[in-house]
């Protein structure tokens, strides 16, 4: 885990995130959002959670970003551009960031380096999912099914 990589990734991620939040063209904002998520995934790689990083890329780029893009397409008449930041929002966001950063700096117990750990293999994750987390896993499965059906019902053509 090198500092150089960290700084690089952090810069790319935050820049992309800022772009996603402020760019006026919806398409550009969405693509920036995708880049920001790739950055987050890179953070995950850096932290040794490769599997989660891959899942993040897979789900967010492969599914969520494409979904967003499709929605943009379907509501095209309305969504071309949006204004960037407004002052109220920006002020509030900066205030929240300030508060959080102050809290993080204030807490001494988090100023620690990374301990040496056993590599997190997919096998371990799989075993955890199938033993201690099997109940949440089933719940998530149910949730995803419900979301799938719900989304279908929502966008179904209304019968006249």
């Amino acid at each position, binding site marked *: 885990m090198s500092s150089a990589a960290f700084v690089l990734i952090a810069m790319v991620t935050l820049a992309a995130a800022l772009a996603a939040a402020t760019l006026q063209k919806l398409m550009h904002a969405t693509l920036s*959002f995708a880049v920001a998520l790739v950055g*987050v995934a890179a953070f995950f790689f850096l932290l040794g*959670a490769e599997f*989660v990083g891959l899942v993040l890329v897979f789900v967010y780029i492969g599914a969520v970003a494409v979904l967003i893009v499709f929605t943009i397409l379907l509501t095209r*008449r309305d969504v071309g551009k949006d204004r960037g930041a407004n002052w109220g929002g920006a002020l509030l966001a900066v205030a929240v960031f300030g508060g959080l*950063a102050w809290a993080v700096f204030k807490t001494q117990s988090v100023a620690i380096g990374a301990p040496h750990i056993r590599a997190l293999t997919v096998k371990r*994750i799989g075993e*955890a999912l199938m033993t201690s987390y099997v109940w949440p896993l089933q719940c998530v499965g149910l949730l*995803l099914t419900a979301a799938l059906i719900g*989304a279908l019902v929502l966008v179904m053509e209304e019968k006249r």
Partner: protein
Amino acid sequence: MTPTLQVFLIVSAALFSTGLLGALSRRHAIFILIGIEMMLAAANLNFIAFWRFSPQSQPPTGVMIAIFSIAIAAAEAAVGLALVIAVYRHYRTTNVDHLDQLKG
């Protein structure tokens, strides 16, 4: 020198605030959704970071929560975007300023 947990938390807080900025200042429902997704990703980053910097335990709880949260975020995005489309069909707009039928 390697980055400490603190630094990761700061980055995560920045990402969160950026997401908040997007969610607060945009006027289109899709943008707001993007902002919310970004906030979720920041939270996930926190989980992973805490997992990595804590004394290891079996099973890897932080990673698990991140995985579940990603799955739930996907469901949320699907339903949210379906709602956006349904709303658009009905009102011909996705501008949340105009969607204030529920005002008191």
